[in-house]
């Protein structure tokens, strides 16, 4: 079974009475434990694709299956349950809850499941990302790199089957970027998670097993198939 299977995914917006297709007929599938980078210029549809794959948005047509479940057939609450159980996220802007401490931020997905031992797991993950002494700090008291490491710890707290990362190093300096990227790939490997990485950074993209290149909402190249589409 594929970790994620995307078939003919299309997203169209209506703006001032005009239809705007930002993603058209995108199809790909990823086996469990593999990694894939989605690259392309700004406005090519990368973030839209990530949002649809993660069940954050609904496609205009086409399907997304995660762990064998078609997301388009589920309502928002059911999709939320899948996100909580099987999906992890890392964002460019970290998206930590500013009113919660680092430890509490990491615990949130586990607590949403009502899981016992969430605190111990969160403490272990914070130690794993190198922040054992930052448990009680609020996001505003952490540097950008530290916030992203907390975000990584949070992404892995529920042992997700698939991890979506949206420009995870986009807001960090080169040195910190390298450390965060190393950590991301290490954790991914350790926990055999499927990774979907949206990035502009070709160096980072090259560390994945497969690269999809988007342009104007279409897949213009796929390293797995070797297809180079012509526009």
């Amino acid at each position, binding site marked *: 079974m594929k970790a994620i299977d995307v078939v003919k995914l299309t997203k169209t917006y209506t703006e001032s009475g005009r239809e705007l297709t930002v993603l058209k007929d995108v199809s790909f599938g990823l086996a469990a434990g593999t990694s894939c980078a989605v690259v392309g210029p700004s406005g090519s549809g990368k973030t839209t694709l990530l949002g649809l794959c993660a069940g954050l*948005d609904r496609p205009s047509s086409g399907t997304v299956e995660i762990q064998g479940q078609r997301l388009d057939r589920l309502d928002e609450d059911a999709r939320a349950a899948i996100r909580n159980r099987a999906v992890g996220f890392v964002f460019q802007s970290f998206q930590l809850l500013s009113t919660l401490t680092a430890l509490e931020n990491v615990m949130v997905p586990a607590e*949403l499941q009502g899981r016992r031992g969430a605190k111990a797991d969160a403490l272990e993950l914070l130690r794993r990302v190198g922040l054992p002494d930052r448990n009680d700090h609020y996001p505003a008291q952490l540097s950008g790199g530290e916030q992203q490491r907390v975000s990584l710890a949070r992404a892995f707290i529920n042992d997700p089957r698939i991890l979506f990362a949206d420009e995870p190093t986009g807001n960090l300096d080169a040195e910190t970027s390298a450390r965060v990227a190393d950590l991301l790939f290490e954790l991914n490997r350790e926990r055999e998670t499927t990774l979907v990485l949206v990035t502009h950074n070709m160096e980072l993209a090259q560390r994945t097993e497969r690269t999809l290149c988007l342009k104007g909402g279409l897949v213009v190249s796929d390293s797995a198939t070797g297809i180079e589409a012509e526009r």
Partner: protein
Amino acid sequence: MNLGATLMDPWVWRMAWRDSRLHRRKLALFLSSIALGIAALVSIGSVADNLQWAVDAETRSLLGADLMVRSRQPFSREVEDAFEALAAPGEAREVRFGSMAFFPQTGESRLVQIRAVSGPFPFYGELETGPPDAADAYQDRRYALVDRGLMIQYDRAVGDTVRIGGADFVIGGSLLRIPGETSVSMTAAPPIYIPGSALTETGLIQPGSLVNYRAYFRLVDASGVPDAIQQVKLGQETEDLTFETVADRRRQLNRSLRNLNRFLELAGFAALMLGCLGVGSSVHVYARQKLDSAAVLRCLGARASRVFAVYGVQIWVMSLAGSAAGGLLGIGIQKLTPGVVAPLVPVAVPSDISWGAVGEGMAIGLGLAMLVTLAALMPIRRASPLGTLRTPFEWRDSDAERRPFDGERLAAAALFGCAIAGLAVLHTGSLRTGLGFSGGIAVAFAALSGIALALMRFLRYALPASWSYVWRQGMANLYRPQNQTTVLMLSLGLGTFLIATLSLAQDSLIREVELSGSAGKPNLVLFDVQVDQVDDVVGMLNSRALPVIHHAPVVSMRLSRVGDRSVESLLADTSRDVSRWSLTREYRSTYRDHLFDSEEVVEGAWNGRPAPANGPSTVSLASRIARALKVSPGDSLTFDVQGILIETIIGSIRDVDWQRVQPNFFVVFPTGVLEAAPQFHVMTTRVQSDAESAALQRSVVQTFSNVSVLDLGLVLETVDRVLSQVGAVVRFMALFSLVTGAAVVASTVLTSRFLRVRESILLRAMGASRRQIRQILFVEYLFLGGLAALSGLTLAVCAGWALASLVFDVAFGVPVGSLALLGGAVTILTVLLGLLGSRGVAGRPPLEVLRIEV
């Protein structure tokens, strides 16, 4: 969404607790406005309960007796026999009339109400006097008890002398409280009690004088009052007696209390509405600030209902705390309120805590706060997890903001409206009043927001482009995204509106009295002049070079027949369209051959000829009484003048200017009919100064002790004092609105502080100085306060005009000075609160501010 089940979720409470840690002070501030609204409701409810308890406890003392019988004439032998047959264990008499009181030590005099009492009245309750035993001793020692206000005004003390008519009395005590009477009524006609046995010494009771005779009874069994009334009625049939029982007095009082309570509740509801508005608006902004966090939680897998519940729990727990604080505050304020309503009620108002009112106020406040915050929190429920990937404006603009007819919010708003209307109906006990009540509040809110929006729009387009950047930016801030301009204008505008309307109404009434005595018009009335005193009184005026502007004889009479139907049959006819008061009232009519300048014939023709020797006389009726009696020229009326029936034909209908300081009459007879009837005369004159007025009054009271003098200064002073006492309640309640409005301003300024901080950073980065940023903030609040004040004042001018023209029927004028003062005060308050709430915004360096959570 199963909100109930979600609210039991421990994670929801844990998250709510954690998330609130950094915002608790801010949340508490949001809820300060609802706390004030609840405080208003609790204190008003408690006062209403206390009033009712006091009325229940003092029921019998409201009348001072089980039964009171009243007449305009001395009781006849038959009536006295009937009284005797009652065999009442307690009986007292009172003769009540208006007269001049003269203070020989100072030479000052004033119109007062004399009450000559014989017997141990009151039987229930007591006359409160200083010293306390004066009430027991004044009849035996032949003392006078003088209204405390009067003693303070004329600087008199116990032991001084007061002259009533031809008799001097030592002031034995000051009257502090009379059972069943309000201080407002005592202000309007200050009473002086004298022993009934000394009445003849005063020489004030003359034929035709306006005197009220009262008999008070304490019965063996209070339940026997209806039988006693029947017994007295059967004992005589000719006299016009009025009976009043404890139940009657209580019914009247309950009706008055209901009106007072309704007014207070209206003010309380208005404060609560403002509180809800403040909370709703603050929570709305809070919810928008929380959309990012909500999006993250949604992205991490939290269901919409759980995310909604996290923020709902925060707000609702704080609402509960706010309602508890409001309850406590209400209890505190309630201790002050009895003092404010005391002049308006005839019972001593206790300040006991009414737990029922506290519970009810808190429950209502909490319920409404929950409803209003439910609507304000709706955007959180719809927070999209996509918000984690997209910038807020990319997705938010397409969400709630573009859905003006959002079903859920509309439903919540409708539910809120229904709750308000339902509560109002429940409280007033009448569907019509309740709906009118809530509709009135809605109309006031709608009118204020309409005026505020119109003013803003006008300013937006009228603001000259040449104005400096600081002014244009300050003005533009009123339109910034997430602005709360309308809410602030409403909250400040409502308080301004209430205070200004009161001031306008008071001003119109006083102006009318002042106008009525302006140049050339009479400003002093002499009444109760007996027939044999007329020439001497006219001589006295002439000797002082004072004109007799009006001179009218007054004859008391009652209506006997209207057309061919007797008054009794009309009263018995339940389908009649003639008002009862016009049939039963005592008519004080005059006779003359000319019209006064305050009269204008509008129907028929004025007939100045003397009455014919035989046949009905032609009379002229004032239009108000003609309307009440449903009669027109050509119809016939029969009057009973001291037992003699006089037939009349209506010759003309007159419009009368009742506002003038002069004698006006419902019925004017021709000459040649009433000259021989018992009567007294009224004259008007014009004095040039207070000193001249005082000198004339002194001479009149010393020479003609039965003649009373009413001068315009006294009317003005009385109107002013009565209005001030009534107005104190309105001012107190308006203060609630203003304080709640101030709380709303404080919380909304702090709520939107983050916008100002960000803007300040940008402006400073672009080179703006701290001074410029402070100036921009100043201009913003100046506009806000100024526009709010202007909205409130505009609506108040409309309401003031409506009150003056439609209710009081007086000329309307705008006291520009006092309104400008009020508008200035509201504007300064807004600027102060705004600048205080924005403290530090201008001064923080951009780099530091960028990392601060606001």
